[in-house]
């Protein structure tokens, strides 16, 4: 159990439409807002996240490099329009980490569009393993709960219980 989870302030989960579906504070460190503020925050962040993805700098390819004819591609992804991204190997993504003086926010977006925002103090390490574990708990205790409706607010007692237990140090 990563010992440095003491620096985890709070967690927010946003569904793929930008709606807030889960918010929980584990440790005080940030100002706590009303649920309405969190709803607004989730909505704006959803938009901002998309914009940060679209303002990714594009490097013009002067002589259009013959895009490697991947013979086996089915319907090919949108053809390169004379631009390449700074590091082409990595898929483009929106905002992943946000640093401020008082806290650090990690945003993990799943391929299905769900976003996990984890707020930790700037020095907390191994944030990626923490957020990966949270995703596994979410996949287990929310997605497998027949009483949870997809894209709706998460009110799964087992999820809260396991998340709290894991983050507060008891396995």
């Amino acid at each position, binding site marked *: 159990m990563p010992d440095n989870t003491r620096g985890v302030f709070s967690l927010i989960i946003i569904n793929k439409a930008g709606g807030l579906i889960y918010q929980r504070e584990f440790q005080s460190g*940030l*100002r706590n*807002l009303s649920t309405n*503020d969190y709803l607004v*925050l989730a909505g*704006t*962040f959803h*938009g*901002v996240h998309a*914009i*940060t*993805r*679209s*303002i*990714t*700098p*594009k*490097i*013009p*390819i*002067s002589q259009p*490099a013959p895009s490697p004819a991947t013979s086996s591609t089915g319907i090919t992804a949108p053809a390169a329009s*004379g631009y*390449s*991204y*700074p*590091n082409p190997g*990595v*898929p*483009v*993504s*929106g*905002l*992943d*980490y*946000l*640093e*401020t*003086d*008082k*806290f650090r926010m990690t945003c993990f977006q799943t391929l299905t569009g769900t976003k996990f925002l984890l*707020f930790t103090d700037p020095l907390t390490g191994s944030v990626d393993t923490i957020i990966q574990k949270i995703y596994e708990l979410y996949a287990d205790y929310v997605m497998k709960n027949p009483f949870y409706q997809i894209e709706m607010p998460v009110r799964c007692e087992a999820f809260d219980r396991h998340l709290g237990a894991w983050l507060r140090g008891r396995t």
Partner: protein
Amino acid sequence: MVVYSFYIFDRHAECIYKRRWLPRPTSTVGKSRSDTVSGAAPTGLGQTVRSTDDDSKLVFGTVFSLRNMVRKLGGEDDNFVSFTTSQYKLHYYETPTNTKFVMLTDLKSPSMRIALQQIYINLFVEYVVKNPLSPTEHPGGVGVNNELFEESLEQNLEVSSREQVHVRKGETAGSHRSGHIEAIIYKSGISKAQERHSCNRAHTAADSPVVKHTVLRAPACDGTFWREKKITGAQHRSQARQGHPYRLFM
């Protein structure tokens, strides 16, 4: 370290300065040096360049909402420092006068907070605010684009980027310039014609064989400036290198 673009927004949420460096895309050897040339050679641009003004609006929108979010969560005294995506890193610095400095760099660059502060303190304040010619307010970026500021900005970024990358030996600007480096100087509000005019004027001056480096020399459009600079400015460059990185002009 590669810098992609740099913006300044005033307290009226208007983009008063924008600079984009588009490094050569597929430089095989090491880091593509962010060769910067002022003034886009109008003819050089084959591809359709994305209309640049909405880019700055998007950047401002992002930065503004993130700043508010951070203020709301972390408290009024917390401020937004930087964010990273899988492709780039955005650095942000806001002065108490609500002037916002934004810089987009690649992922490997360290925190540019100090650099932005330096740009604000040494460049913006010195050459824009204290410049009697430029108005106190900068609607449409008027007065920010004076050569002094531009020139020093180049130096600062050039030196600070070289500091980080420990100087690529033997690389001369001229040999890499193959026509498609371009930096779009875009000051919102200034008509295209005026921009081209200022660029041409600098162009003719730079071609004269003996280029005595003077403070007010505006960098040429097509990078010739660098070659002359190298010839005449060698001692300047070496001087800048040993001196502390931000002393810019003799």
